[in-house]
């Protein structure tokens, strides 16, 4: 087989595709390097950038949840506690690379520079997707789980066909790994040698369903070898380890070594969304145990010990995050008058004759509403009368 779609076939060595015995950890929960010499630790500036991102992500999660309580957002699936994964996913990519988030990964999109108000568009209900995917090379957030993964492979393959150095980082949850699309995407990527890093945020739950009901594998990273790609798992609350493993995978993909699977072991600290009641299916002490592994605490401790972070610097980071929160709040508090013409405008490049007729129906209804502005509409009338 020739052409860039060729692969090396069945000659690969299984051993180098299996994950480490234990998830990679570079900083322990107290922020102490696991290797005495700090081996593998990213440069301090990288870590400081990451901490800044995590502080923004945490604040953004809090702000979005508050906006749900205030009725400005219909629903919010928070990544509180998963900020290291969110930030690392964005930080290891260049501008030309692509990020494919799940519906929960709003904070990762923000970390990649997508406007925080636009990123919440889906959840605010103005439109399905609020931002231009080409702007920051962030695919639309959508809810059908794992379906974005084959798209990611296609984007990567197209870039490779043109000889561009693009790498695609495609995110997915532990639950999403059970879907057929996960399988087909990883297999396509491996067969075509596409430059994709599949990053599974294993936060231990799919709504109420625990990992054990999702997979019996030794780890989700063990799924890599079955496709012929390396699988690795990482402490998903250790930003240093995530940056190390993910950026390694990204650079290998860029160099033409094909796709890789990375599992970040983390925890969904809050309910699935505000509509969910997590106490129905998990114990408080389980949550408490994970609270002790908070990704922000551990990195901040390390950077303070290293002298890279002091109170003044920390205050700056908090203020920067506060600005993002303010921008989010202000944007979400603005009501956009929805334009019903939009319903018909984007279905096709040119609306069909059928859609033009249907648009006319809506316009006619609205113009009649306009005419009877001061009267009561028939609908309201009926409600009036039955009161």
């Amino acid at each position, binding site marked *: 087989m020739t052409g860039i779609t060729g692969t090396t076939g069945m000659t690969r060595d299984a051993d180098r595709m299996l994950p480490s015995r234990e998830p990679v950890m570079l900083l322990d929960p107290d922020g102490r390097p696991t290797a005495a010499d700090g081996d593998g630790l990213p440069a301090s500036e990288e870590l400081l950038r990451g901490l800044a991102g995590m502080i923004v992500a945490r604040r953004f999660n809090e702000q979005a949840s508050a906006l749900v309580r205030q009725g400005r957002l219909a629903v919010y699936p928070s990544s509180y506690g998963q900020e290291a994964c969110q930030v690392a996913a964005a930080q290891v990519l260049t501008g030309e690379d692509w990020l494919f988030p799940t519906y929960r990964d709003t904070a990762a999109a923000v970390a990649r520079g997508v406007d925080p108000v636009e990123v919440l568009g889906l959840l605010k*209900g103005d439109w399905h997707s609020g931002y231009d995917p080409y702007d920051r090379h962030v695919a639309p957030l959508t809810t059908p789980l794992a379906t974005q993964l084959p798209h990611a492979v296609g984007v990567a393959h197209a870039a490779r066909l043109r000889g561009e150095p693009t790498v695609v980082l495609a995110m997915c949850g532990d639950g999403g790994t059970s879907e057929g699309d996960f399988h087909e995407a990883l297999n396509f990527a491996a067969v075509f040698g596409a430059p994709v890093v599949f990053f599974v945020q294993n936060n231990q739950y799919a709504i109420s369903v625990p990992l054990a009901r999702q997979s019996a594998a030794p780890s989700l990273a063990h799924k890599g070898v079955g496709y012929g790609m390396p699988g690795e798992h990482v402490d998903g609350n250790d930003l240093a380890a995530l940056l190390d493993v993910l950026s390694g995978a990204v650079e290998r993909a860029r160099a033409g070594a094909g796709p890789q699977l990375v599992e970040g072991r983390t925890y969904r600290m809050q309910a699935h969304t505000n509509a969910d009641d997590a106490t129905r299916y998990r114990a408080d002490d389980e949550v408490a145990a994970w609270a002790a592994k908070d990704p922000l605490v551990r990195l901040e401790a390390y950077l303070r010990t290293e002298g890279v972070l002091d109170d003044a610097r920390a205050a700056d980071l908090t203020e920067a995050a506060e600005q993002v929160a303010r921008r989010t709040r202000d944007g979400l508090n603005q009501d956009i008058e929805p334009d019903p013409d939009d319903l018909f405008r984007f279905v096709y490049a040119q609306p069909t004759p059928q859609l033009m007729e249907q648009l006319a129906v809506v316009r006619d209804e609205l113009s009649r509403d306009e005419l009877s502005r001061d009267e009561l509409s028939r609908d309201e009338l009926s409600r009036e009368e039955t009161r």
Partner: protein
Amino acid sequence: MTTTAVEHATLSTAQAINRALHDAMAEDPSVLVLGEDVGTLGGVFRVTDGLTAEFGEDRCFDTPLAEAGIAGFAVGLAMNGMRPVIEMQFDAFAYPAFEQVVSHIAKMRNRTRGRVALPLVIRIPYAGGIGGVEHHCDSSESYYAHTPGLHVVAPSNPADAYSLLREAIASPDPVVFLEPKKLYWAKGVVALGPGGEPGIGAAVVRRQGTDATLIAYGPTVPVALEAAEVAARDGRSLQVVDLRSIVPFDDAGVCAAVESTGRAVVIAEAAGFASVSSEIAARVSERCFHSLSAPVRRVTGFDIPYPPPKLEHFQLPSVDRILDAVDELQWEDA
């Protein structure tokens, strides 16, 4: 098993479905309930609440997150003596299972000349009106109704939800059971035990009327009834037919209704093109041709992807839009 003294209870639609599952499981140990989050959590709409606690993990349980897997697994359970009731968490999340539904669930009995029956129920919370985001509001009934081998049922009230689901579970054939999400919280009096309401295949006239017939099913039935109420005040007498079952279709009942008024409006949330509402309009136009004083009108969703929450009211058949359609039924000729 027939109960003589029928017990009644006031329940929401969600509770009625829960009760139907409960009662069917209590009666028949081969009834199993499975899907995403149906176990410990009791479902995202709490429709399966308490079933695991009462019947144990072997009878009501969570599966991995994979809809084709759930449907295909249920095929095997049904092949081997069980009566699985599977839940697809939301309408659009049933699409991954489409091949299993169309190529196996619908075809197994026919393929095997009746040797392998698949007594299974696919429960799908469906349709809009709850401010749900993309993929949570699809009206997918036409995909199933077009597929020979499936029964397709959509209750419009708690009593039917209970009764039709009991019948669906007892059916020797696969039934797609469409639960209008926006009616989950609507309450009504429910006759408990099987057979409390007319069976699958029977349409019901929900409101008598002489001027025109509104044909609705599932979530549009309450809207049709409201429209008829408003029209009555304007002096127009609208009849409302609730299909209840899309497949089989009650040709006799629907035609009798339309022939009695000579005018018809079909009301459905789904995009209209090549849909169940097309079928109803085509059947009524063909079968009641000489009784019709006006073309059959359709009030359906537009042929667009289901809109975001802030725009969904434009997509949903409303009282006003139904009354506009009624106005267009060429009364000048009457």
